[in-house]
């Protein structure tokens, strides 16, 4: 087997007592102090996440706007420079190859940020879909992605940089510098809280990480709490809630599919065969990925993610449920050690997140 890949911060994590584990081919920190403490700290203060494993591609050249509009589902016609948007790379059938964020730098100048596990495939797919006149450059190795998330993240970032980011709307970004290094500050994230995804050259990653941690409001947070935070916020994880057997409409993303471009997969992107449901469970025992979902004694679906939700004090889960059973309210989950009663829940599970907070 190939060696696990490391980020510019892997040595720091190991030296600071993180539990490390393989994730998407990378050696990543799962937790430092503990998932519950890190989760709660992010909800109340500010959590710092090493997300360097994710992929970043630059797309530019004459015709890039039109060509990218046909390659991904994002509506680029209404995406202004300085804004980014969530969407999908679909296959010909309209199912999801990856979910990703597209940043518009200029008329024909973009960055696309993709999942680590999908990055190589995404690059090949995009290269095949874009004409030769449009350049596609993988800058993942040179780009560190560090997420700062939590209600105090804005104050922390402004204190460190001496800049004012109150003008940034949700899904807005700005390019600046820190200690002479280029820094892209994006008001986005994966926790449901006010927060930023920060892109900086890999060579500056460690210094930037340590500078952010000097602020007493900031703690490092591992992928364990990242998962419980995103699950509570009702955000999908590729490979669990999104995959190449389901389309965006089935995942509850139909309303954001506003692009009028003739993008790959558009025709199939609306057909509903299964529906992604949020479920709340009775008791403290968790359902896990792969557990069958039953209704009326019949198997109607499968759990994609499930966990005790620290901010809610109960167990929540996502599940794919067959269309015919998806209007139901009560389900039974056949977990490894017991049958668990589940009730359909509104998303997001956690409704007090600060992500969309007005700042100005």
């Amino acid at each position, binding site marked *: 087997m190939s060696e696990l890949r490391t980020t510019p911060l892997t040595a720091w994590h190991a030296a600071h007592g993180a539990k490390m584990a393989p994730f998407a081919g990378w050696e990543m920190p*799962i937790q430092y102090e503990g*998932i519950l403490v890190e989760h709660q700290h992010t909800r109340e203060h500010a959590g710092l996440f090493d997300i360097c494993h994710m992929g970043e591609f630059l797309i530019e050249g004459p015709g890039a706007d039109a060509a990218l509009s046909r390659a991904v589902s994002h509506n680029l016609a209404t995406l202004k420079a300085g804004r980014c948007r969530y969407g999908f790379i679909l296959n010909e059938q309209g199912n999801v190859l990856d979910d990703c964020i597209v940043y518009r730098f200029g008329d024909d100048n973009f960055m696309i940020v993709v999942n680590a596990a999908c990055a190589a495939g995404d690059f090949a797919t995009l290269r095949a879909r874009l004409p030769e006149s449009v350049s596609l450059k993988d800058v993942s190795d040179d780009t560190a992605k560090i997420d700062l998330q939590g209600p105090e993240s804005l104050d922390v970032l402004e204190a460190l940089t001496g800049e004012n980011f109150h003008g940034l709307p949700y899904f807005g970004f700005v390019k600046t510098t820190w200690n002479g290094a280029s820094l892209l500050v994006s008001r986005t994230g994966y926790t449901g809280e006010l927060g930023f995804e920060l892109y900086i050259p890999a060579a500056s990653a460690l210094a930037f990480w340590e500078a952010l941690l000097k602020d007493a409001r900031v703690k490092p947070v591992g992928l364990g709490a990242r998962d419980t935070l995103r699950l509570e916020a009702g955000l999908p994880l590729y490979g669990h809630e999104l995959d190449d057997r389901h389309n965006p409409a089935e995942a509850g993303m139909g309303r954001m599919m506003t692009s009028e471009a003739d993008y790959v997969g558009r025709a199939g992107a609306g057909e509903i065969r299964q529906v992604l449901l949020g479920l709340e469970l009775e008791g*403290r*025992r968790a359902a*896990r990925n792969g557990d069958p979902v039953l209704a009326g004694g019949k198997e109607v679906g499968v759990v994609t993610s499930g966990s*005790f939700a*620290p901010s809610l004090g109960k167990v929540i889960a996502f599940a794919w449920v067959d269309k015919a059973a998806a209007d139901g309210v009560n389900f039974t989950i056949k977990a490894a050690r017991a049958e668990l009663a589940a009730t359909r829940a509104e998303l997001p599970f956690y409704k007090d997140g600060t992500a969309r907070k007005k700042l100005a």
Partner: protein
Amino acid sequence: MSNPADLLYADSHEWVKVEGDEAVVGITHFAQESLGDITYVELPAAGDTVSAGKEFGSVESVKAASDLVSPVNGEITAVNDTLENAPEQLNGKPYETWIIRVKLSSAPEGLMNAAAYEEHCKNEHH
């Protein structure tokens, strides 16, 4: 955290405190640290029979689940039901938090002392 010298240990990471013909059972520091934050404990009932090497319940953390394996033979005389709503006690004070009390039907066999158990844990760290 060191493992108390007055306890016996099973290779499945439960501890046993023998008090006359009774034994108190819990999980070790190594077990709770490996699991991470514990969110659920499945408890047996008083009166249930337990057999050495057999499952008597389970523990779940945010990320994992694990069987509780009895280190002894006997009948359960008491269950620590405060774990139902406060399972995190197992993380905070593993050697002060008992799970079951058992009236022994035979003397415990095949358990380790603290020094042997520490060696056993080292071998599980790869």
